[in-house]
């Protein structure tokens, strides 16, 4: 029941938002997202107490597709992603309280549809259902980013959509190719896994690359990443948050659930190549980040670098690395959401995204600066912030990789640790320190609702950084 509600509540909320008058949309969105959060919290508690939440009904009988979704033992990553989705949306909405978007009911209903789609992606246990939710999550975001955002949003969003949609189609073909092997018509995860186990390595190579490219575009990793800085720069901040905090995790999540277990030989055979691409991603994107002058593009590249490390850790085929990635997928979502909210405040106050025109904020807006600094420190994985534990585990996992290149991989990915400090501290310096710029005088400190949102993110960052047990128990593996 809870599983159905997790998907259904935002879906119904979205429908209502579309039908009701525009004035009602905002309170409705808040109520819906908070209700979702409560349902998610109840599911989390039940899950940690050992309950299995599952729904399994006939869906399209002729194809053997079932509406099979849920959280079973060992689905810790899905629980984390479900919680992340449930947490991020209400805070996006709260941060919007004093600057409502135009056509509010369209905006909120699309956002809620995206939430429903994301929930479905993380809960689905049937490949066809997974594919459907994958697209359900993408389409509202496409409309959102083409309707709200910067001046170049239309071509940028078009590229983003075609690129990721092309990836999705390749994935669909791969799903169908596996489905063809099924002894009885079934899209279920169990059936896919047993097919994958029996498949010869030669056949797995093709399937592996088809699925990996689909997921790699979504994450994105080098060289499939070029849609992302443009999309982050041009989309409105709430949409960017959905994209960077949650949607890019779909790619990583799909690798863990639908690629590694289903195509085991292919994944093992190509892991060195994938880790190499991921490590290139880390170093390359970090280098890109240090030369950006646009704050949004800088954070976009920083995000690519972080995702690259998570991808490398997942493909290390070490449990420790995957656990680290799971922890980091959640924490990165929290940190980056907080960072984007800070950036949207900067953008609104300064009226520019160019860091060269900023400066001296620390003097006029001390509260804002504290928030910016704490969230930035989480972005560079300083210990006792939430960014550290996951990164530390991932690096240890990567170092344990059974590969002749494991030291090389770790050292190169480690350069990302240094470069992250370079671009993040430069960003703080350009925004907050130095003499006050022309535009700084009008920079006011946080308003009440901004303060509430900031305190929430800062507390999340520090509490999870100091006491990560709250997350760790979900992914605990008996030694």
């Amino acid at each position, binding site marked *: 029941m809870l599983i159905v509600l997790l998907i259904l509540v935002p879906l119904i909320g979205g429908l209502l938002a579309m039908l009701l008058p525009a004035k009602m949309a905002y309170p409705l969105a808040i109520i819906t997202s908070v209700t979702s959060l409560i349902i998610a919290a109840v599911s989390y508690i039940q899950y940690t107490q050992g309950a299995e939440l599952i729904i399994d009904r006939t869906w399209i009988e002729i194809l053997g597709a079932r509406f099979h979704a849920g959280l079973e033992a060992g689905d810790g990553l899905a629980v984390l992603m479900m919680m992340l989705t449930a947490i991020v949306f209400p805070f996006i909405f709260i941060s919007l309280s004093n600057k409502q978007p135009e056509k509010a009911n369209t905006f909120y209903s699309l956002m809620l549809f995206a939430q429903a789609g994301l929930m479905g992606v993380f809960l689905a246990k049937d490949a066809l259902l997974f594919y459907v939710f994958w697209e359900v999550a993408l389409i509202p975001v496409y409309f959102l980013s083409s309707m709200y955002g910067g001046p170049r949003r239309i071509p940028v969003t078009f*590229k983003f959509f*075609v*690129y990721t949609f092309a990836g999705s189609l390749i994935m669909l073909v791969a799903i169908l190719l596996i489905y063809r092997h099924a002894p009885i018509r079934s899209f279920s995860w169990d059936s896919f896994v047993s097919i994958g186990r029996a498949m010869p390595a030669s056949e797995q190579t093709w399937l592996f690359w088809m699925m990996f490219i689909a997921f790699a575009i979504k994450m994105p990793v080098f*060289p499939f*990443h*070029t*849609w992302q800085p443009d999309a982050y720069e041009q989309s409105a901040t709430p949409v960017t948050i959905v994209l960077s905090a949650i949607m890019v995790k779909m790619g990583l999540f799909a690798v863990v659930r639908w690629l590694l277990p289903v195509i085991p030989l292919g994944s093992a055979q190509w892991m060195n190549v994938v880790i190499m691409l991921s490590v290139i991603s880390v170093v*390359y994107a970090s*280098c*890109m980040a*240090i*030369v950006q002058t646009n704050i949004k593009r800088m954070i976009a590249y920083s995000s690519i670098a972080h995702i690259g490390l998570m991808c490398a850790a997942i493909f290390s085929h*070490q*449990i*420790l690395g995957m*656990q680290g990635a799971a922890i980091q997928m959640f924490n990165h979502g929290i940190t980056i959401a907080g960072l984007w909210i800070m950036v949207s405040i900067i953008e609104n106050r300064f009226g520019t995204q160019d860091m060269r025109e900023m400066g*001296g904020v*620390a*003097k006029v807006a001390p509260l804002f600066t504290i928030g910016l600094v704490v969230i930035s*420190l989480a972005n560079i994985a*300083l*210990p*006792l912030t939430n960014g*550290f*534990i996951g990164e*530390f*585990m991932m*690096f*240890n996992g990567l*170092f*344990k990789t059974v590969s002749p290149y494991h030291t090389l991989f*770790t*050292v190169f990915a*480690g*350069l990302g*640790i*240094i470069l992250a*400090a*370079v671009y993040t*501290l*430069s960003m703080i*310096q350009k925004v*907050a*320190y*130095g*003499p006050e710029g022309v535009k700084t005088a009008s920079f006011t400190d946080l308003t009440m609702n901004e303060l509430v949102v900031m305190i929430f993110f800062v507390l999340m960052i520090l509490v999870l950084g100091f*006491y*990560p*047990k709250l997350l*760790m128990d979900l*992914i*605990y*593996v*008996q*030694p």
Partner: protein
Amino acid sequence: MINLVWLVPLFPFLGFLITGLGRNKLGKSSGWIASLAILASFVVSVGIFFDVRSLAHGDLEHGGGSSVIVPLFDFINSGTMHIPFALQVDALSSVFLLVITGIGFLIHLYSISYMSHDDGFGKFFSYLNLFVFSMLLLVLGANYVIMFIGWEGVGLCSYLLIGFWYKNVDYTNAAKKAFIMNRIGDLGFLIGIFLLFSKFNTLDFKELQSIISTGNFSTAYITSVALCFFIGATGKSAQIPLFTWLPDAMAGPTPVSALIHAATMVTAGVYMIARSHFIYTLAPTAQLVILIVGLATALVAATIATQQNDIKKVLAYSTVSQLGFMFMALGSGAYVAAIFHVVTHAFFKALLFLGSGSVIHAMGGEQDIRKMGGLKPYMKITYLTFLIGCIAIAGIPPLSGFFSKDEILMSVFNYGAYGKAFWALGMLAALMTAFYMFRLFFVTFHGEFRGTEDQKHHLHESPALMTIPLVVLALLSAFGGMIGLPKLMGSPHLLEEFLEPVLERSLAANPMSNQLSQSSELLLMGLAVCIGVLGILMGWFYFKKYDAKKEVKGLLKMAQDKWYLDEIYDTLIVKPLFKGSAFKEKIVEKGFLDAAVNGVGKLVEVGSTKFRLLQNGMVGFYMFMMVLGIIVLFAMQIWLR
């Protein structure tokens, strides 16, 4: 008392929260609250110290032998990795606790007066308390992860405090540089941790020590761990090649330089290596590397110090040089001597920095010694205490610096075949130490006053809140050497006895154990004293009447310009990184990757525009195309057959 050890970092942490959250309301009281927090930690630390002493003598009924682990909670427990948040109390950590909280308290007191006119008074003390908290975590951690938490924490506080006056772009650049150079070292430290964890699945000091010292592991493996850790130490403790951040770090307020960049944080690398002694004892190659790097740093930094004109820069290079001495001790296996020098150096260098702060205060913010001179009659207490600090660092008995430096040089002398050559170079560094310190001393306090008339009227002795810490530190600098008197003098080496349970096996493996004969030890000691006196005399000879207008030339000019190291790093690393990245963005990112993606899109677009033209609605054309197609198919069939 030992089980209450968590109180030690807790007090400064509470102080940080109170002074941080109440920074706008508390006013001047935040300085006292912060100082009180450190005092409370100091009191607990003293209690712990006595407990540890009786522990070593076997009075307490603890099963843990010479060290006690106090576990607090599970930090990471994923089944594949278990890192408890645990504190370890033993002789080594308790020595550091006393130094950090004791000197920390004095510097807090001093800062109440020194920072009293600053806008960021409350913020300053909250950062300072956060620093002490992190530093305590660093030395109390029972495994490498907790140590690393403190390690990064002190780096953060150093960053925040160097850039404390954030409006000045140079200062925030210095802060950024410090953090990034430390991060370069941190990567080395982390890789060392990964190496250990991947083999032993634990990062606990005690467990690792028992595994490594009883097992048999390849020297190459142990050496690579040791070298990786040393890279970490070169960052935090400002050794070649990562030392250039420390002189720039003088941008921070002077009490910060005294506490963080002289007495405590920069010795973290020494602590880390002493803590990992069980690794280094098995890696003689790594030890040799440390010895050489330490020696080179001591020499290079000393040459630069002789030519600096900023009072704080002289002290900063002096700190780098003295840290080099500590690493020489570590490299030659003399862990006790290294810790001993950490302690005495903390006394006299904190004293010297606070003294320079008192001078800067009197000069109204002026730091250039060329514009000082003749300050002696105006500030008697500062003058006398500064003199004591100078004598102590120059290595004149019976002041503290003599004993620790002598112990280091002695152990270097004993080190293998090249020991004597290393010793001679070490003596040269010691000579320069005495010289540059007394150059600083004479130029600042003697001769004619060279500042403006305004400054002359303003000259005054600092208030009691600043001079009391100076006096206490001067007493410690004068008599602190008593904790480590040479065996020659017939009295026990208290520090060695205290630390012995921790370093046991590593001390036995120390080349120091083949003792020199009494007469040659006396001879070396005499030579060390002569070198110190010679340095002082040279300082007196050249600088008793200082002419500020004389320009330096040639090699000396190069030393003044820090041997152009910053410029070299800039050309070799920083510029290529930024230029290369900008190039990559233009060529690879925009010119190739993005162009390829757009190209595919264009291709489809152009292709479909052209293909669309085929559908022109003329039946004749369709017929023609159909026939053409059939012919092509026939042709293919024939061809393929």
